[in-house]
């Protein structure tokens, strides 16, 4: 089906004129409205908005933006097609290098990647690459068949992908496109990894993840859920007995850190993983009606941390009908917050109270249940190992926040299940798998990538690692003969 808008005659415009077009704002649900629902916050460009925004691209021959993209999306090429109204062609170009464009268009930190390198960004706002990517992917999903690339004849090579998160899904897609037989093994009951258990519905609707997973299935990828590699089967068994020629480990950073503070095991203190999984993957926001998994029913929620996970947890808590007040407690200041600016901005608009330069010192409770958090004010001292100024407590500045739920979002370590059950797999002292640039590990035929290698990072970096490993795995299995 082709419903592209056809532009018959289009006058060429100069670069100067292109730069005069203002960056098109993203239509959004109003903060007041969205703070009470789980629908997506940005509504997406219309075709007209997208074409107008695409006009702003100078179509640089030597495109800096592409260098900023971990999966090297051919940015000017696809934007050129958007400007011309050839959305189907734009989608085709996008998909050549990016298996999950609808996801990336929503959750990539474009402001630090492609858009930060946009040439016009030096003078005016950069081209809204992320919004255009999202538009194209959404347009394709809404307008008929997703184009399935031609797949070469089966190579007879079997590849196991461990973990159906961004790294694994990308790696699987690329390997399936080479004609290999690919099976993804996922521990949870649904594929998607952090895209389904972590990132909330209002930032990434689960239907979009499902559509991207279906696309992989159309490429011939098999997905086996409820399968915990390390427990249900070890990597040795898969390689030696089940006939896999290679494996890719993309199990992510899924082991929650706690703060070792007094009262941390009181009822009402949650890891961000637990809180978000209950609400997102288990659809706890529909409890007790259509979903059975209970979620914290707290009036006052304190989220500890300043990253994207903290923002997700805070904005999720705010949307639960019984929650009245949500605080973010973060020990450094606004500029050091690792979360995307857009997420912080959205949270502020929705009414989350940010207590910056503040750190919890203990969790207070009665009869085993949390009822408050004691916090302490901080000030910034000398720069620490991370180059950021180190927060130092201000003596005597303690105060108490009323809270029935606390969500700890101070980071994740690596899950030990695979390391413990795979002899000969080198890991760092933090439990991250040691891998070279291509993702090759110390074990013959085994690659790894994403958070399990580099520690908690971003969806797109994991996808980039999956892509790089796929190329190396393809070369390896074909060489092996």
């Amino acid at each position, binding site marked *: 089906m082709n419903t592209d808008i056809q532009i018959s005659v289009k006058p060429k415009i100069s670069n100067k004129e292109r730069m005069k077009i203002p960056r098109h704002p993203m239509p959004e649900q109003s903060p007041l409205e969205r703070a009470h629902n789980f629908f997506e916050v940005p509504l997406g460009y219309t075709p007209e908005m997208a074409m107008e925004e695409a006009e702003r691209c100078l179509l640089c021959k030597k495109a800096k933006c592409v260098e900023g993209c971990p999966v090297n999306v051919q940015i000017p090429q696809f934007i050129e097609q958007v400007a011309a109204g050839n959305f189907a062609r734009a989608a085709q170009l996008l998909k050549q290098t990016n298996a999950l464009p609808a996801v990336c268009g929503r959750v990539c930190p474009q402001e630090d990647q492609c858009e930060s390198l946009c040439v016009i960004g030096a003078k005016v706002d950069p081209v809204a690459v992320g919004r255009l990517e999202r538009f194209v992917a959404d347009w394709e999903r809404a307008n008929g068949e997703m184009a399935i690339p031609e797949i070469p004849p089966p190579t007879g090579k079997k590849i196991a992908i461990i973990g159906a998160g961004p790294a694994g899904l990308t790696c699987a897609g690329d390997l399936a496109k080479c004609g290999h037989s690919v099976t993804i093994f996922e521990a949870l009951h649904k594929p998607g990894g952090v895209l389904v258990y972590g990132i909330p519905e209002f930032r990434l609707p689960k239907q979009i993840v499902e559509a991207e997973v279906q696309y992989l299935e159309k490429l011939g990828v098999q997905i086996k859920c409820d399968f915990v590699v390390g427990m249900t089967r070890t990597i040795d068994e898969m390689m030696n007995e089940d006939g896999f020629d290679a494996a890719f480990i993309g199990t992510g950073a*899924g082991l*929650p850190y706690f703060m070792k503070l007094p009262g941390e095991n009181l009822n009402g203190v949650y890891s961000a993983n637990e809180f978000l999984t209950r609400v997102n993957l288990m659809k706890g926001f529909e409890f007790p009606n259509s979903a*059975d998994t209970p979620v914290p*029913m707290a009036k006052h929620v304190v989220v500890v941390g300043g990253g994207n996970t903290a923002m997700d947890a805070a904005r999720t808590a705010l949307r639960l009908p019984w929650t009245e007040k949500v605080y973010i407690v973060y020990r450094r200041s606004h500029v050091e917050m690792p979360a995307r600016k857009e997420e912080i901005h959205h949270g502020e608009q929705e009414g989350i109270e940010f207590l910056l330069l503040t750190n919890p010192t203990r969790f207070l409770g009665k009869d085993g249940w949390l009822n408050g958090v004691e916090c302490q004010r901080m000030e910034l001292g000398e720069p620490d190992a991370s180059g950021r100024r180190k927060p130092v407590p201000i003596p005597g500045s303690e105060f108490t926040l009323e809270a029935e739920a606390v969500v700890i979002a101070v980071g994740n370590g690596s899950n*030990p299940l695979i390391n413990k059950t795979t002899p000969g797999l080198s890991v760092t002292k933090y439990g991250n798998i040691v891998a070279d640039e291509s993702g090759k590990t110390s074990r013959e035929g085994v690659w790894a990538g994403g958070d399990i290698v580099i520690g908690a990072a971003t969806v797109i970096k994991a996808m980039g690692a999956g892509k790089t490993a796929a190329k190396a795995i393809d070369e390896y299995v074909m060489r092996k003969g």
Partner: protein
Amino acid sequence: MFRILEKNDLAAKVYRYIIEAPDVARKAKAGQFVILRLYDDGERIPITLADWNVAKGTITLYVQAIGKTTIMMSMMKAGDVLADVVGPLGIPSHIEKGKTLVALGGGFGIAAIHPIVRAHKLIGNKTISIIGARTKGLMLMENEMRAISDDVRIATDDGSYGTKGFVTTVLKSMLENREPMDVVLAIGPVVMMKAVADLTRSYGVQTLVSLNPIMMDGTGMCGACRVVVGDKLQFACVDGPEFDAHQVDFELLMARQKMYSPQEKISLELFNKICATQEQRETAVW
């Protein structure tokens, strides 16, 4: 397909299910558990493996119908299919040769000690099982336990069968009589496991318990199942579920088990309201 092949109504709302789960059966070891989900948008619940059959590709679970999910499970029939069964999970029970084991199972905790006692028996250890119930008619798995134990001692709350009292009453007299034992294993309600730990502590007998905190993913991802063992924070799903009973903070475990009690009540009340009659329950859609 996780099909229920057989379902038996035992006693005290306890049901036995034989479920098709070849991947789990193939790797299962004594002391491990599975997490299951009945249907889409259902909750994930952990259940200890009571038995398995590698050749048939089946696992056996004992489930007590006490909350919404377990009640709904009790209404499923042979031939019905569970949405998910994942496992085996957890570190298998630590089994050493040349030991005399005393295993205590309270209520349907007997199902959980069963594979561990059998594993001890299989490597030639002496096994003494103490099993208990409120009353004789509610005793579970007596024959199964006799088949793998050198000796089975019985306790009932009302004295209708065996010793009057709890399984701990029997253990206490064994300790007092200095009956030889190297390892004590206790699985059941937290109060029972705590009582066993308190009893054996002064006698210095190595004691193991299998903890049953609230869990969600069962792979170390959520931290809901965190327990304190000897001042160390542990995740029962990946560091356990078996721990040294003398090191476990049972008070914390008991408190944390109540984490979702208010919500569990809401869920069950709503369910009872919607499915008021038995007929409605039987036609409920999974």
